[in-house]
């Protein structure tokens, strides 16, 4: 006997009903799908079909490897099980449909026969089991482990139960079928066989089993069709939306914000939901509420009102069919406290498995708030005015910009004829306090030791505009950027080196938006090159054990993780210690996005948490490579009374000391 089975065994005569149910569910699903599309279409137009090949390639890699999802192992495995379980089961169902609706009626042939059928059965059974395990893991995680990042809605339970029911009922049907028809190849359907054996052990009569089979078969079918109908209305829709989001993910430099036209208009940034682009709205839909952003957000962790997941989910309510588009977002949907708590550290985006871009939404809303409404935390007014009047966030003025170099002989580029390299000092280093000047001094000495011809702009430096831009003041940013670019052009500057990650990111990723044509290197990249080329030599090594803090704008925004570790490896005698969160998971210092100038409103201080983490490593000090981080940590270290026992230094100072 050729192994096979009759598809509508035991239900035969009601096939039509099956198709009717299927049709209904697909219709309902389509309505749901259309609503989603309608929701996305609320947004502005944006063309992102570039690099379709690359996008497709990455999309499949993403699906197959689950690389971003697997960053959280439990969730990754769980998702992998359910995903592949479903993929295979779905394919299996497709094969059946292919056979029953195409091959059999038109060609009178079957594919589910013989060995293929046996393997088909086995594979489907195993993957079905995998999916059950996955769903089990999901249920266990959601309702037993209950990690804080997950918020359980009824729909989550319904969905999981529905899936579980479909899977289990499928196996029940299989078990009944095997028991009643009792084929020789029952063991090729091991899970079904197991279910059948259990039914037999329970002593259910064969006739009863036949009856039950019919009932449960229908239940299984209705549940499955129900799932299809329910699909666009449930979290399961992420199968579509998240996939699309992965495909349409941003390929722009990760540190860059999108410029807006500030010459004309009455309205800037995002005031209402329709001011977002369709991709932004797809983002909202793609969010699976996995909570990883929340788990990694420094604001959320330190008890500030911001929770990136909540922001996305709150905005998502506008995608629903009868939502009122006219509601202003800021202060109605996203509170001002939430809006301004973001440090723009990009931790949320880095961990988001489906490439939701939280940051640009927050910035767009900030832009609206600042530019259109002129509403922002009161401390920022002084910062904006300082930038406008003095050209630096601190309100010190250009005449103080060369003070740090008073003991050094450094060329000013405006006095040079032949400009080589521009060393960009940045406001924080040049102006903040005496301590902050150590870094540029060390940097200049390193450049000198390496015999590089360089100059500084001195009084002609202006703030790069990073702070203004991240605080939503695009007007100020563009104003500053244009002035700086003008100066670059005036002195024909081609290459800029800076040690401030914020200046670095802005020059490298954002100035091109305004026509700057400069090569930008971070000081650490330069040091690594100099060390490799032997232009800089390590003369002695340092005994202390240090830990390294990855600044957000160097690490996550620009992927410079390797250089500092290479340098530290060369200049420290012992291995550096990593903190609990490092590299792409590095925990922000709390200064970014304008929070430098804001008194912490609620919750714990972010820099304090980071310093605690650093102290926990038992290292004797923390090394960073960002003046902002240094200032923040300095205050935290002092506040904790560790001023003398726990050292804080810029990596450049350390390098200067040993070369």
């Amino acid at each position, binding site marked *: 006997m050729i192994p096979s089975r009759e598809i509508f065994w035991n239900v035969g005569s009601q096939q039509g009903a099956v198709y009717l149910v299927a049709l209904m569910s697909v219709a309902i699903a389509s309505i749901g799908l259309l609503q989603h599309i309608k929701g996305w279409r609320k947004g502005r137009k944006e063309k992102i079909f570039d690099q379709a090949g690359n996008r497709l390639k990455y999309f499949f890699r993403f699906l197959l490897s689950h690389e971003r999802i697997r960053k959280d192992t439990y969730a990754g495995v769980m998702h992998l099980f359910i995903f592949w379980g479903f993929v295979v089961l779905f394919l299996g169902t497709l094969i059946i449909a292919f056979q029953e609706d195409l091959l059999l009626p038109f060609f009178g042939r079957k594919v589910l026969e013989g060995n293929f059928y046996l393997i088909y059965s086995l594979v489907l059974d195993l993957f079905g089991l995998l999916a059950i395990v996955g769903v089990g893991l999901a249920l266990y995680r959601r309702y037993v482990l209950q990690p804080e990042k997950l918020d359980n809605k009824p729909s989550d339970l319904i969905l999981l139960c529905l899936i579980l029911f479909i899977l289990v009922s499928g196996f029940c049907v299989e078990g009944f079928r095997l028991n009643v028809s009792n084929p020789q190849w029952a063991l090729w359907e091991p899970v079904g066989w197991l279910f059948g054996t259990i039914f037999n052990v329970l002593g259910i009569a064969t006739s009863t089993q036949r009856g039950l089979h019919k009932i449960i078969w229908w239940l299984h079918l209705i549940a499955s069709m129900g799932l299809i109908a329910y699909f666009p209305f449930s979290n399961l829709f992420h199968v579509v939306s998240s996939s699309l989001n992965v495909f349409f993910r941003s390929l722009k430099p990760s540190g860059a914000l999108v410029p807006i036209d500030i010459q004309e208009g009455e309205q800037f940034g995002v005031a209402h939901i329709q001011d977002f682009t369709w991709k932004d709205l797809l983002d909202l839909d793609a969010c699976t509420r996995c909570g990883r952003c929340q788990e990694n957000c420094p604001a959320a962790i330190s008890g500030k009102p911001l929770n990136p997941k909540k922001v996305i989910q709150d905005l998502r309510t506008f995608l629903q069919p009868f939502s009122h588009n006219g509601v202003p977002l800021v202060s109605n949907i996203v509170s001002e406290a939430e809006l301004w708590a973001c440090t723009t550290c990009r931790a949320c985006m880095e961990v988001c498995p489906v490439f939701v871009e939280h940051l640009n939404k927050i910035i767009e809303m900030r832009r609206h708030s600042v530019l259109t409404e002129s509403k922002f935390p009161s401390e920022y007014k002084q910062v904006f005015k300082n930038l406008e009047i003095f050209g630096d966030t601190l309100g010190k003025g250009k005449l103080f910009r060369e003070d740090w170099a008073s003991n050094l002989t450094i060329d000013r580029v405006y006095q040079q004829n032949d400009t080589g390299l521009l060393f960009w000092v940045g406001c924080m280093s040049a102006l903040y306090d*005496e301590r902050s000047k150590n870094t540029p001094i060390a940097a200049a000495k390193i450049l000198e030791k390496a015999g590089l011809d360089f100059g500084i702009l001195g009084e002609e430096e202006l703030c790069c505009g990073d702070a203004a831009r991240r605080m939503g003041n695009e007007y100020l940013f563009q104003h500053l950027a244009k002035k700086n670019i003008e100066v670059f052009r005036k002195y024909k500057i081609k290459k800029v080196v800076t040690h401030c990650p914020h200046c670095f990111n802005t020059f490298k990723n954002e100035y091109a938006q305004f026509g700057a044509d400069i090569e930008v290197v971070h000081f650490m990249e330069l040091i690594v090159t100099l060390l490799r080329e032997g232009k800089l030599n390590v003369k002695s090594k340092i005994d202390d054990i240090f830990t390294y803090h990855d600044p957000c704008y160097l690490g996550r925004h620009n992927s410079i993780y390797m250089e500092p570790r290479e340098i530290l490896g060369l200049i420290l005698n012992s291995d550096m210690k990593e903190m609990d969160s490092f590299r792409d998971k590095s925990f922000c210092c709390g200064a970014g996005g304008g929070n430098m100038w804001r008194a912490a409103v609620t919750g714990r201080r972010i820099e304090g948490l980071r310093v605690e983490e650093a102290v926990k490593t038992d290292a*004797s000090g923390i090394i960073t490579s960002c003046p902002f981080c240094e200032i923040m940590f300095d205050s935290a270290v002092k506040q904790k009374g560790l001023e003398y026992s726990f050292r804080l230094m810029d990596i450049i100072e350390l390098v200067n000391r040993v070369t």
Partner: protein
Amino acid sequence: MTNGQFKYLFSPFKIGNITVKNRIIQTAHKILPCREGVTGDQYIEYMRERAKGGVGAIVTEVMSVHPTSDNFPGVPGDVMAFDENVIPQFKKLAHAIHEYDAKIFGQLSHGGRQGNEEITGLPVWAPSAIPDPVIRQMPKEMEIEEINELIEGFAKAAKNVREGGLDGVELYASSAYLIGQFFSPDSNQRKDEFGGSLENRMKFCINVIDRIREVVGSDFVLGIKIGGDELVPGGLTLDDFKEIAKRLEATGKIDYITVTPLVSFVTFQMMGGLGMSAPLGAWVHQSAAMKEVLSHTPIVTNGRIKDPIQAEKILADGHADLIGMARALISDPEFANKAREGRSDDIRTCLSCNLGCFKRVFSSLPGTCIQNAAVGREKEIGIIEPAKTRKKVIVVGGGPGGMEAARVARLRGHRVTLYEKEKELGGQVNLAAKVPSRQEFGDVTRYLGQQVKKLGVEINLAVEVTPEMVKRENADVVIIATGSTPFLPPIPGADQDNVVNVRQVLKDEVKVGENVLLIDDDAHHKAINTAEYLANQGKKVEIVTRLLFVGMDIAASGLLYPIYQNLLSKGVKFTPHTMVIQISGNTVTGLNVYTYGQVNIEGVDTVILATNDLAEDLLYRSLKGQVKELYRVGDCVAPRKVMNAIHEGYNLGRLI
């Protein structure tokens, strides 16, 4: 921002043709012995440390312009600035200071009648044959040729200073030294063109200035340090010095004037005036008075200025243009940087105790600071390096020694726990600071207490430590700083009820009668300050000592002057040369140590012993061999002074 708090103190200032980065000037002071007539390497390191600490300008120690000169009474060894051999070391010095963007001026002087033939081997030169009240050697009245020779000596020295790369010279013209001796009718009674009228008396000085300007040119800083008031009968007064300053300004060749309290070493009274019993900024009025009469010459004030806020106030009130400091910077070389960075609280404030600096230097010992062990040994022990391995350290005793050890150990990264059996930190320092005129001594506790707290030393107060407790803690290092207890001398009757010790009195533990007899075996502050404490309460006090005079050991610090003044005006009786041999009831019997004659002092209500102490080393002994590393510091080793405790604490902190 810090600049806001110190608008003037940290604003740059133009002296002559150079700009100093702030208003803090380290005034000249002798601190380390000088060998072979050139600036010593150790001294350069000492100066480098101060420049690194952020001062605007530094004046070198006083340097000689002639072989007949000895500028420091009783302290051998001046830099012979007139000799070209000094130039290489000058260059080294200038380089060290310039590295930190500070300026350096060389101070030139001739000791005049304060010279010492025993040191120079040459006759003492002076304007007139009138001996100095302290040195008491009859000088030779200088002949015109000798005067001219000296002027050349100044010129040569100034030239060397310039060639050595320093930024300027400062003439030391306080009345203690030759130029000033010419000013004063008290020491200058010449009948020729260099004596008589003020114009004549200033002629020597003016000639020196003219000649130096000829040699160094007009673009080199030339400052002069003059007194403000000689404060001796018949001496120059503030009004006279105002006139002198005016005439100096009129030459147009002087770039700044420093007004110094140290006009004379008569009875060491001026050093007393710099001690902690003098009011803070007691001498500022002199520079303020000069500022009123001068039109443009910058004035440097100094003397009892030890706090940045105080300094800022002086500048803001227009009492001076620049602030001179010496002892404040000996105590904390980082003074300027700490103030500028808004860490004024972290400054180790000078106590004006004069014990590490004046007293030792005048006893021909290398100067130091009782609070700062690194003075003069900056290179060897000045840097506190983090420890290779972090240890668990227990310090028993929160006196100065214990706190310093805890501070340094913590700075090096150790985990430190400090135990103190009293309710507050400070140990015996708290007792010393109870006498009103010694209140500033409490700054030892203030600084160390605050630092250990800030650094995160775990502090346990009111805990009596037992050996079991220590063992239970299982620490890597145990430091015992349990101090001392008073020692009961074997005098018959010393166990009587009316015999008490100094500590009991200062703690107000005992009731002290009206007639008090203090037995001073200590010769330091113990007896005389207790006497002050009691005399202030109106008690009748007598001090007996077998030594030459009461408080003999602190004579060289100059502090005896104000204390004696206070004690004598309150009727305190001093009975030196007398050894107490018996106390019976209200009668104390003494023996003259020279004649062996017996003295009976009757009607004594309370006898107070200011004798030695006994090391409190019980805990140390019981822990010996029981813990991994065991050390002891301060009185618990052998009862001595605060300085020993702090220095030992420092050294130990660096060692473990």
